[in-house]
């Protein structure tokens, strides 16, 4: 099968700091990859390389067989790591979704664009958000709108940087359902950064454990081995389990 993403000995340096060090990787098309690793591990940096937002200091990044910058933007649907929205910018949720369609801020939407944007919002169960102002949305609602924006252009690959941030438990379960449905319909590749190992174990076809280098990459049961997790995080066991044991001791 064709590779969606290939890294060949890729390093990224910010000044004297090495964020990624000799990463080699081959992600097959159609995979659902969960990327995990501690804060500062270079996870967002990896996605930015694929998007062409960053150039590697060394090595080569190929996306669908092409250099990253030669890949049509329409092929990639990106949800950036949650950051504070510029709430002073006047915009409706539907406009943000439509911006993914034409790669411009829309002055006015054609009937077709409106329909496509609404369909994308429907996909994330966000129809009722369409005519709401962005500045009035809650964090979780906003994340869903960004997700719809990534869907609307029917990308071949979704690049999601902690997309569940701000979503409630049901919303998160919903999100996985949406992603899997989209993947089935479009045979798309999904790369998702997450801190939720359990969800990764359950939903992903591949897990990439990253800590400036590739610690492990493969099917969840192999990549999420105790050995890999210890090397990436310095301890084993899901963070939830850690806090649980503390609570029990208190009780």
């Amino acid at each position, binding site marked *: 099968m064709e590779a969606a993403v290939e890294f060949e000995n890729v390093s990224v340096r910010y000044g004297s700091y090495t964020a990624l060090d000799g990463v080699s990787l081959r992600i097959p098309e159609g995979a659902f990859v969960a990327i995990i690793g501690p804060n500062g591990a270079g996870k967002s940096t990896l996605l930015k390389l694929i998007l062409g937002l960053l150039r590697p200091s060394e090595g080569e990044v190929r996306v669908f067989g092409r250099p990253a910058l030669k890949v049509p*933007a329409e092929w990639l649907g*990106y949800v*950036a790591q949650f950051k504070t929205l510029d709430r002073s*910018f006047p915009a*409706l949720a539907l406009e943000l979704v439509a*911006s993914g369609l034409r*790669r*411009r*801020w829309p002055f*006015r939407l054609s009937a077709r664009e409106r329909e496509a944007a609404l369909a994308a919002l429907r996909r994330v169960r966000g129809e009722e958000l369409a005519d709401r102002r962005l500045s009035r949305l809650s964090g979780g609602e906003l994340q869903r709108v960004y997700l719809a924006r990534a869907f609307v252009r029917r990308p071949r690959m979704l690049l999601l940087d902690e997309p569940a941030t701000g979503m409630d438990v049901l919303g998160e379960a919903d999100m996985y359902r949406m992603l899997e449905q989209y993947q089935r319909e479009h045979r798309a590749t999904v790369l998702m950064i997450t801190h939720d190992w359990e969800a990764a174990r359950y939903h992903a076809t591949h897990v990439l454990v990253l800590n400036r280098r590739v610690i492990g990459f493969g099917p969840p049961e192999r990549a999420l081995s105790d050995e890999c997790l210890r090397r990436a995080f310095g301890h084993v066991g899901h963070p939830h389990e850690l806090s649980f044991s503390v609570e029990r001791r208190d009780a």
Partner: protein
Amino acid sequence: MLEVFALPFMQRALLAGLLVGATASYFGVFVVQRRMSFLGSGLAHAALGGVALGLFLDAEPLFVALPFTVLIALLIAWVRERTELGGDTAVGIFFSLSVALGVVLLALKSEYAADAMAFLFGSILAVTPADLWAMVLVALASLLTLPVWGRWAYATFDRDLARADRLPVLFDDYLLTAMVAAVVVSAVKVVGILLVAAFLVIPAASARLFARTFAQMTLFSILFGLFGVVAGLVLSYLYDVPSGATIILVESGIFLLSLLASPKT
């Protein structure tokens, strides 16, 4: 009241006012949303250096001030991009430099001090045909950049998203900065160096108060800008007071009304 505009110099003033009113309030929406107001006021002062240079060289002041100020603007953008100095510091440096240059040049040719005053406070009734041509030129250039609205707006909303979509964000930044500089220079004769920044920002700020979308904000801003110019001109004629200041007072009135009328947030 409309017979006011039967007078040829008033027609020229009206045309000049409408041209710079529309362009300034159009670019004002980007200036407001990108928090570039200080750049606007800095460039107005830089224009003083350009005007003085024009007077000193016995050339048409605006035609010297235009390239001069655009150059200063590009330098500011370049310093901001290349260094970790804040944009405001870069503006501060180049704006003082231009003003200092202007003061020295004007002192060397003191007979032009009166002409310089027309630029400092604006004198729309003294708009010459050459000034008008400069304004037409800038307005045409603005029209040519209309297709860039969607790119500028996109990058204003979120730079990284625009970059991920392969938009030439950096080029667009320079283009916007250069256009703002050109618009500022073309408006200097109408409202004066001291008030240009307000002329740029107030219509957009008023529009922001009740616009739900960026497109609405843009349209309302232009509308307010045009209304401010026409009403300001008529009032300044009727009461025989300086036109530039009157235009700004009218626009400020619009802002206050918008403030009262807009829904609380």
